[in-house]
C-alpha cells in the first residue's frame, strides 16, 4: 500500500517536473507544477500511514482505548493540509502571472515570451 | 683637507698650461689631417688667431638669458672637470681640487657643461641646435656604457674610486699600467672614448654639412670664443682622465703632454679611417662589441 502511494507520488513528481521543463505553454507548465505538488502531498500522506490504523479523529471510545495505538500519525496529515493550501497559493499566483503575461504579450508560449525582450 | 690660497694659483697655472697645450695639439692635429688629405692646411697657431679674433669682436646678438649662460655652463664644465682632476702624480701643487671628489665626480661632472650648453643652444630657437643635441645625448648615453663597465672593473681591481690612488697603483713600471693589468677594461674604455670625442665615425652630432655644426650653430663672436676656449680645455681634461686611469698617469708635465698627445691621436686615427655612423647605428654599435668587452673585463678581473 505505502509502496504504491510512494511510487505514484514519486512518479507524479517526475512527471510534473518533466512537464515543467519541457512544455512551452504556460498553462501546461503550471499544470506540471500542480502534478509535482500532488505527488509531494501523496508522499507526505503515505509516510504518515500506519498499517491497520484509523483516521486520527478522537472520540471517547478512542481515547479510552489509547489513541496512540489506534490512529495513524496525525502530523503528516496536518502538514499535508498546510502544504495543499500553500500549493494552492503558488498555483494561483502562477496563474495570475500567466494571465497578466497573456494580457501584456498576447501569447502563452514561453519561448515567444523570452524572445520578446 | 685644508685650503691654501696657493692652491688657487697653481690651479690657475695648470689651467693656463692645459689651455695652451690643447690649442697647440688641436692645431697640429688639424695640420696633420690636412696634410694626409694633400691639402696645405692651417697654420699650427691658427686656433690662437681664431680665439683672439672672436674675443675681440665687438658686435654680438643674444637670444636670451640661457643663450648667455650656455657658454658659461660649457666653459665652467670644462674648467671644473679639469680642476677636480689630479694632474701630476706626486706633485703637491698640481693636484688641483681633486680632494673634492673621486672618479665618480669626474664622470658625472662631464655632463655639467654638456647639459648647460644644451640649454643655451636650445634657447637660440634653432632646430639644428636641438637636432644636434638629441643626437649628441643619445650617442653619449650608449658610449658611456663601455666606460662605466671599465670604471667598475678598475674600481674593483684597485679597490678604490680615488683617481690619485688608481694612478699610485700603476707606478713602478710600464707593466703596472691598467693597459697591461686589465687590457679588456682599457679596450672597452678606449672604444667608449671614441664616442665622446666628436670625431668620425661618431661626429654626426656636429655634422657641419647637414646641421651646420649642430648645437653651437647660433653662437658667434664672444660666445663662440668662450666655447672655443672650452674646446681647448675639455678634451684635454677628458684625455688626462684616461691617461690617469689606464696609462699610469704622469709624474711631470712633459710626460703628461706626450701621453695626452698620443692618446688624443687615437680617435683622430679612427676618425680619418672610418665613415660616419648614424645615431641609431652608433647606439647599436656601442651596445654590442664594446659593451661585450666591458662585461668580459668585469668577469675576468
Amino acid at each position: 500500500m505505502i509502496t504504491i502511494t510512494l511510487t505514484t507520488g514519486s512518479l507524479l513528481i517526475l512527471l510534473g517536473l518533466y512537464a515543467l521543463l519541457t512544455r512551452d505553454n504556460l498553462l501546461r507548465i503550471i499544470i506540471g507544477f500542480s502534478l509535482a505538488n500532488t505527488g509531494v502531498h501523496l508522499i507526505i500522506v503515505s509516510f504518515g500511514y500506519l498499517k491497520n490504523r484509523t483516521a486520527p479523529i478522537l472520540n471517547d471510545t478512542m481515547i479510552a482505548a489509547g489513541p496512540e495505538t489506534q490512529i495513524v500519525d496525525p502530523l503528516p496529515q496536518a502538514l499535508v493540509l498546510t502544504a495543499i493550501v500553500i500549493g494552492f497559493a503558488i498555483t494561483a499566483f502562477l496563474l495570475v502571472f500567466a494571465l497578466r503575461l497573456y494580457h501584456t504579450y498576447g501569447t502563452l508560449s514561453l519561448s515567444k515570451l523570452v524572445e520578446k525582450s | 683637507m685644508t685650503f691654501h690660497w696657493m692652491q688657487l694659483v697653481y690651479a690657475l697655472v695648470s689651467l693656463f698650461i692645459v689651455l695652451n697645450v690643447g690649442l697647440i695639439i688641436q692645431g697640429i692635429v688639424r695640420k696633420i689631417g690636412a696634410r694626409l688629405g694633400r691639402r696645405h692646411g692651417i697654420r699650427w697657431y691658427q686656433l690662437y688667431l681664431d680665439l683672439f679674433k672672436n674675443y675681440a669682436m665687438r658686435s654680438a646678438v643674444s637670444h636670451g638669458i640661457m643663450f648667455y649662460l650656455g657658454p658659461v655652463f660649457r666653459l665652467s664644465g670644462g674648467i671644473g672637470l679639469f680642476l677636480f682632476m689630479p694632474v701630476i702624480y706626486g706633485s703637491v701643487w698640481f693636484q688641483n681640487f681633486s680632494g673634492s671628489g673621486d672618479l665618480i665626480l669626474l664622470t658625472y661632472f662631464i655632463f655639467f657643461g654638456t647639459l648647460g650648453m644644451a640649454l643655451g643652444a636650445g634657447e637660440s630657437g634653432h632646430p639644428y641646435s636641438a637636432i644636434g643635441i638629441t643626437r649628441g645625448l643619445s650617442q653619449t648615453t650608449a658610449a658611456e656604457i663601455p666606460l662605466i663597465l671599465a670604471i667598475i672593473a678598475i674600481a674593483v681591481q684597485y679597490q678604490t674610486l680615488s683617481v690619485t690612488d688608481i694612478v699610485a697603483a700603476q707606478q713602478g713600471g710600464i707593466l703596472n699600467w691598467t693597459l697591461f693589468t686589465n687590457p679588456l677594461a682599457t679596450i672597452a674604455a678606449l672604444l667608449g672614448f671614441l664616442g665622446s670625442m666628436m670625431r668620425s665615425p661618431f661626429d654626426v652630432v656636429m655634422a657641419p654639412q647637414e646641421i651646420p655644426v649642430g648645437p653651437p650653430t647660433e653662437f658667434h663672436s664672444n660666445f663662440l670664443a668662450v666655447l672655443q676656449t672650452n674646446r681647448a680645455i675639455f678634451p684635454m681634461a677628458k684625455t688626462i682622465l684616461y691617461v690617469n686611469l689606464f696609462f699610469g698617469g704622469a709624474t711631470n708635465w712633459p710626460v703628461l703632454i706626450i701621453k695626452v698627445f698620443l692618446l688624443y691621436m687615437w680617435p683622430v686615427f679612427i676618425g680619418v679611417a672610418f665613415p660616419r655612423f648614424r645615431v641609431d647605428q652608433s647606439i647599436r654599435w656601442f651596445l654590442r662589441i664594446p659593451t661585450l668587452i666591458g662585461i668580459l673585463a668585469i668577469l675576468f678581473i
Partner: protein
Amino acid sequence: MTQPILFIALPLLATFFTGLTGKRYGKFQSAVMNLALAGTVLISAYYVSAFVSGTRQPYTASTAGSLPPFSIAFRMALPEALTLLLINGLGLLGLSALKTTFRQKGTLSAVTYLLYFMALNGIVLTRDLFNYFVFIEISSVALAGMVLFKESGRCLKAGFSWMMATGVISIFLILSAILIYVRTGALDIDNILLTDPLVLYSGSAGAFFLFLALIFELKPFPANGWALDVYENASPAVSAVFSGAGITAGLFALYKFLPIVGDRWLFPLIIIGLVTFLFSNILALKQHIVNRMLGYSSVGQAGLIAAVFGMGVLSKEDMFFIAASLMAVHALAKGGLFWLSHHTGYTSVYEWAGIRHKPLFIFLLGFYIFALLGFPPFPSFFAKWSLISALAAGPYGWMMAAILLGSLLEAAWMIRWFGFAVKGNEQTANEIQKTPPVYTLVPALLLLGLILLLNRSRFAFILTNAWIPLLFITGFFLLDFLPARVKNTFMIGGLGLYFYFLYPTLTEFRLIFAIIFLLGGMILLLAGYHYKGRRIGFYPSSALMYSGLVGLLTAGTTVEFFFWWELMTLGSYFLILRGKKSLPHALSYFLFSMGGAYTMLSGFGLLAAANQGSLALETLSSGGPFQAVIFILLALGFLTKTATVPLHIWLPGAHSEAESDVSPVVSAVLLKAGVFGLILLMAGMGPQSLGRVNLYTALGWLGAITALIGNLSAIFEEDAKRLLAYSSIGQLGYVLFALAMMNHLGWLTATVFALNHFLIKALLFLAIGGVVMRVKTRNMYEMGGLIKKMPLSFISVMIGIIALSGVPPLTGFAGKWLSYNATVLSGWYFQGVIINFAGLVTFLYCFRLIFTIFLGQLKDQHRQVKEAPFWMMVPQIILMGVILFISTVPNVALKPVGTFLTRYFPEHALVWDGPMARSLYGYWNGYMIMLVTGVVFAAVFFWLFFINRKAVKIKQFNIVFAGERPSRPELTHFAYNFFAPYQKALGFLVAPVSTDFWNRLSEGTHAIAGFIARLFSGNGQSYVIHQILFAVLVFFLVLGGI
C-alpha cells in the same frame, strides 16, 4: 512582557487592519504600517538590550500551549534579536521608500510588503522545519507580489520565473521535512538534534534535500538566474529589502538548520559559497545595469557568508564576529545602494553621472560602496581581516585566494560604477534634488553606529589609537562647506600640529618618512591656496590620505598598518579621481592597489598564524616555515605601490591625469608609502630565499630593470606629466635596487634617492603643473619658448632636472656617488651598469622636458601667457631652497641617517669629516664641489658678461636658417618624436609587454563573464534546469566523497 509571537502578530494584525479599510493608501494606513514595523523594531531592540545586559536569558517559546512537534517553537536569543532588529529596521526604512508606490497601487501592495516581513520574522524565529517551509513560501509569494509593483513585461517574466523556481525549491523543502520527520519523529531543530546522529546520518536524502533548499534560498551560482532577473527588474526599493532583509533571513536560516544537515555538508557549502562569490563578481564585471550588478553582489555576498558558516576552522567568537559584521554591513550598505538607485531612477552605470554635482549623493554612494568592499573603519574590514587570518592558520590557501580574488573583482566593478558616478559625462534623463531622502541616509548613520560597536570587539584598541586622525578626517567631511582657503589653512595647521606632537615619538626611518609625509605635505598644500571656491571633496580625501600615511608610521600592529594602508589608498584614489580625464586611470590605480593590498593581507595573515595570532609588527622577524612566502606576499603589496615593473602600468596615467597640485602629492609623497613598507619589511624579515633563489638578488634585478624601463619609457613620451610619471617609475626602481643590497651603503643610497625623489618630483610636478595650467595642454611639442614668459618656472625645472640627472653640484649626485660605491661593495656590477645606464637615459628626458617646453620657439598662441600662479610658485621656491641647502651641506642630512643605519648595518659606514664623506672606495665633499663649481661659474659668467656687455637682444625668428627667416614657430620648434634614433635603436625595450599582459587578462575575464552570462537567458525553464543540474552535481560531489 513581550513575546516573540508579536513579531508575527503585529504585522499580521496590521495587514488585516489596513486591508479592511479599503483600497486607498492614506495617512491612516501609512501610520498603521509604520507603527507595526516600528513596533517590531522596538521589540527586537528591547530583546537585544535585554540579552546584552543579561536581564533576560535566551528561551524557546512554544505556541498553542503544547510541545513540539504538535506545536511550533520560536526561539529568542541574541543572534535572533540582532537579526530581527536588522530585518525590521530595513523594513521600516523601506516603507518610506515605497510610499509613492503604495499610494498608486493601493493598500494591498502595502499588505504584501508587510507580509513579506512577517514571513522573514518567522523564518528567523521558528525552530520548526515545516514551519520554515511555510514562511519561506509566504515570503516567496509576497516577493513575487512585490515584483509587480513595477508594471512591465520584464517584471512579469521575472516574476513567473521566480515562481517556477521557488515552486521547485518548495518541493525539495517539503520532501526534506517529511523525510527527516520520518527518520527522527521530530520537526523542530532541538528535538531532531536529540536523536541519535546515527539515525540521522547526514548523507540521508532528507539532509540532502534540506541542504539544497537552504542553499537555493541563497541563490548559488549558477542556479540563480531567476533571482537575478528579479533584482534587475523589480523596483529597486523592493530589491533593497529582498537583498538586505531577505538574504539576512536566508543566511540566518542556513546558520540555524546547518546542524541538522550535518558536518558532511560543510565542505560542499564552502565550495558552493566561494564559487558563488567568485563567479557572481566575475559576471558583475560585464554588466552595466546597476540593479543587476547589485544583484550579483548580493548573491555573491550571501555565498561568502554561507561559506563562512561552513568553515569549521573558525572559532565560535570569530565566526559570530565575521558573519555578523558581514551580514550587518551587507544588509545596510546594499539597502542603501538599492534605495539610492530607487531614488535616482538611474538604471545604467553611465546614467549615474547624474549625481556628479551632488556631493551628498556621491558621499553616500562612496560610503556604501566602501563599506561593502570592506574598507576601514567599517566592521567588514575587520571581518575580512579575521577571516583571512583564521584561514591562514591552516592549509586553506585556495580559500583565501578565492575570497580575495572575488573581493578584487567586486572592487573592480563597484569602483567602475563609482567612477562613472563621479566623473562620467553622459546626459541623464532624471534630474534629482540636491538633498537625499531619509531612507538613503539612515543606513549610513547605522553603519557609523556599527563602527562604534567595534569598541566591544577585540579590535577596540585600533579605534582607541586612531580616534584623533579619524576625527580629523570626519571633521573635514563635516566642514566641507567652508571655502577652500580656510580648509587649506586647517589642513596645513593640522599636519603641522600632528608633526609637532609626533616628533618626540619618532625615530630613524619613521622620522624621515614623517618629514616627507607631513612637512612635505604641508609644503605641497601651499599650492592649494591658488584654488578658489570650495573644492568640494578635496580636503576630506587629502585628510584620508595623510592620516593613512601617518598611520603607517605610528602603527604598532600589522592590522593597524593595514588599516591605515587601506585608508591611504582610498584617499589617494579620490584625489586622483579628481583629474579631468582620470576616470580609467584612477580605476586601474585602485585595482592594482587593491590587488597589492590583498596579497599583503594574506601575508599578514600567514604571519599572524606563524606567531600564534600575535599582531605586533615585531613578529616580522619570526615568519616561521612560510617566511619566504610571507615575504613575497608582503613585498608584492609594497611593490605595487612603488610601481615596480610589471606592476607599474597604473602609474603613468594616474599621476599625469591628476590635478596640478595633486600630481606632486601622489608622486612625491604617496609613492614613499611603498618605500616605507619595503624598509619595514626588509628590516623586519632580513635575508630571504626561496629554494635556491636569493630573493634580494631578484629584487635587485627587478629594481634595475624597473629603472631602465621607466626611464626609457619617459624619453619617448610627448606628454610632459606622463614623462615625469615614467621618470618616477625609474627613480623608484633605483630605490628598490639600493634597498635590496641590504648593506649600509645601499640603504643610505636608498634613503638619499627617496629624499631626492620627493624634493625633485614635487618641484618638477608643481612647475610643470603650473605651466600646464597656463598653456592648457600637456603635449610638449605644443609648447616651446616659454622661458620668456615663465622664467621662474624655468628656473624650477632647471634646478629640478640638474638634481634629477645627478649632475654635480646638486643633490642628485650624492645618490649617484653612493650608488656606485654600494654597487662595488655589493658586487652587483651588472645590475649597477643597468642602473647607471638608466641614469644616463635620465639626461635625455630631462633635456627634452626643459627644451621642448621652455626653449626653442615660442608659439603664437602663448604670447600672452603669464607666469605660473603665485601660490604654485611658493612651494617651488621652498623646495628649491631645500635642494640647494642639502646640496651644499649634505652632511647635515646624511650623517644622522648614517648614524642610525649602523644599528642595522654596522659595517662599511661612511666616515664623515665635516662635509667630506669617505667610503671604503672613494670620497666626496659636497661643500667643496659646490664652492669650486660656483666660483668657476661666477668667474666665467662675469668674464663673458664683461666682454659681451653690449650684446643686442634680437627677435625670435632672427636665426640663421638656410638664408631664410622662418615665420612660424611650429615649423622650427624641433620637439615631436624627439629621440627618434633612440626609438629606432632601443625602442624594442619598451614594447608595452606589461600593458598587453594586463589588458589581455582583463579582456579574458570579461570574455569569460560574457560566456557564462549566456546561461541567464530570462527563460524560467532553463533556470529550473540549472537548479536540477546543480542538485545532481552536488549529489555526485558528495557521493564522490568530498
